[in-house]
């Protein structure tokens, strides 16, 4: 992903981010094509399960080409500058959430970390306060949905105490 933005009114030049999008679409199309081609199955009446994936893969390949042409001609919409730190913070929050849940840390601490990371991405500086708010919110959500509505949320040490 490139962060350079096309200034409106500038000379139209190939859009690298747009070319990358076209390349990703082409990869998806090839992956669908490959998966379908390696599918083993018995003959059926009419259309088998292979027809639709081939159509979708072909469509995606054509669209990858069309997007590539658009990007080459500079036909992608102009974009404003981007705050990369905010994106890293939110995605980091999610990575931590997935890690905590996978390692059995439970729903509440995972939620608290996501809450604090997102708040920081939106410009908050008081990480400790936000972590505390996240913990309280996590406990409240856990009590409401796990105990009251009997949804099963992943439990760690804190959840087992409740």
């Amino acid at each position: 992903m490139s962060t350079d933005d096309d200034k409106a009114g500038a000379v139209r030049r190939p859009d690298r981010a747009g070319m990358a999008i076209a390349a990703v679409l082409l990869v998806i199309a090839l992956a669908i094509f490959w998966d379908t081609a390696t599918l083993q199955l018995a003959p059926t009446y009419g259309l088998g399960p292979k027809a639709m994936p081939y159509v979708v893969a072909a469509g995606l390949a054509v669209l990858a080409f069309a997007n590539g042409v658009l990007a080459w001609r500079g036909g992608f919409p102009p974009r404003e500058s981007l705050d990369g730190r905010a994106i890293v913070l939110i995605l980091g929050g999610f990575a931590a959430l997935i890690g905590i849940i996978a390692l059995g840390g439970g729903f509440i601490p995972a939620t608290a970390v996501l809450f604090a990371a997102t708040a920081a991405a939106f410009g908050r500086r008081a990480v400790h306060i936000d972590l505390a708010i996240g913990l309280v919110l996590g406990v409240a959500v856990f009590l409401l949905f796990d105990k009251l509505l009997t949804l099963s949320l992943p439990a760690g040490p804190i959840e087992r105490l409740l």
Partner: protein
Amino acid sequence: MEALDALLHGLTVALQPLNLLYALIGVLLGTAVGVLPGIGPALTVALLLPITFKLDPAGSLIMFAGIYYGGMYGGSTTSILINTPGESASMVTALEGNKMAKAGRGGPALATAAIGSFVAGTLATLGIVFLAPWLVSVAVNFGPEDYFALMCVAFVTVSATFGDSPVRGLTSLFIGLALGLVGIDRLTGQARLAFGVPDLLDGVEVTTLAVGLFAIGEALYVASRRHLGEEQLEPVRGSLWMTKQDWKRSFWPWIRGTLFGFPIGALPAGGAEIPTFLSYSTERRLTRHPEEFGRGAIEGVAGPEAANNASAAGTLVPLLTLGLPTSATAAMMLAGFQQYGLNPGPLLFAERPDLVWGLIASLFIANGMLLVLNLPLVGLWVRLLAIPQPWLYAGILVFATMGTIAAKPSVVELSMLVAFGVAGFLMRRFDFPVAPIVVGLILGPVAEAQLRRALQISLGDPLVLLQSPMSATLLGIALLALAAPFVLRGLGRFKANED
């Protein structure tokens, strides 16, 4: 007058205390999420799907419909008071509405939006009552090939015909269709596109896609643009009440907006943007106060708001009678029907009239509730806008993620959620429409099943698609709708060169 009998019967269902409660919860939630930026009715329905799984189908569908209508009311409040429309259909409202608020006429702007939404919602729901049985009587004779052709029309209109760029719309649609292929094929039991990952055998969860695209994608997008400056919240000053003059200037725009919105919503033409733009430009041409346009003309709020609500109601016609969703929220409602094993269509009208007509009748009730909730209580909703942005978005992400954590707390599922979030962010940044991907995921497998059923009946002869006059006509329309934006663009370029 069969329709009226059915509606009266539906009213007895909708007026049951528990269903009234569901409608009330729906409109409250709907208004709240409509008012809050960064969260909309499609996301809310998606979040509620796993929670409502065990509830009574009629009740939760009534609640979903309440959320849909409520979201339309709430969205106008946000666009009038902070000029950041909660959803694209409210964009036009912001044009004049925010100017009115800045000029101290926020009260009448909110009032004409709410009353206009009520008028349009009620008239359009009446439209459903009379149009739906007729469409059902036509659709009863549809074979699988006709349904397939109809879905092709919906795919094209939702993605290509009315968007900014047919290429980007179709790209979004095809990604949705590809996601719909993942998992075990319903007809043969073959695993497709699972790449050996057991989590993928069940297919891509609608909730995971919607939460990723709408909640995480939106949060990433807003956070990445925060440094560009925030919009100010306009306090509501002065009287809420409309003067006699305001009423006079609002009445015909409401009616005209409804006349634009309902047919376009009902046609499977997709999206509420077109009728709101049409209504705005019409009012601008017809007004006796052209000098006020651009500086806060009440007609420019009344008309588009009515058009917006009428088209939302209109999209319920193809959804209920044909199982055809033409907006992201309608697609989520279809997923709601599917989770109870219900398939909207003529059969549902015959088998579960209590449910269908109860739902339609509850729309009238929801509309009435919304008028009350939005006029006197508007101050309460405005206070929601005062939640500091960091906590608002952090809270949205926590609640949004919770649905997926509760349903499937696996690393694969959560990683998919984040991947869809990144995709949603990139789609917003590069201006790809989001609705087609959701429609593709939900409607794609249905369309494939219909096509394969049609070809099984015809013993594999593809000409069956052209032999049914209905299917041939619909496929022709789909082709025309696909070609239209390219041809028209070509004409436009030709004209531009001439100048």
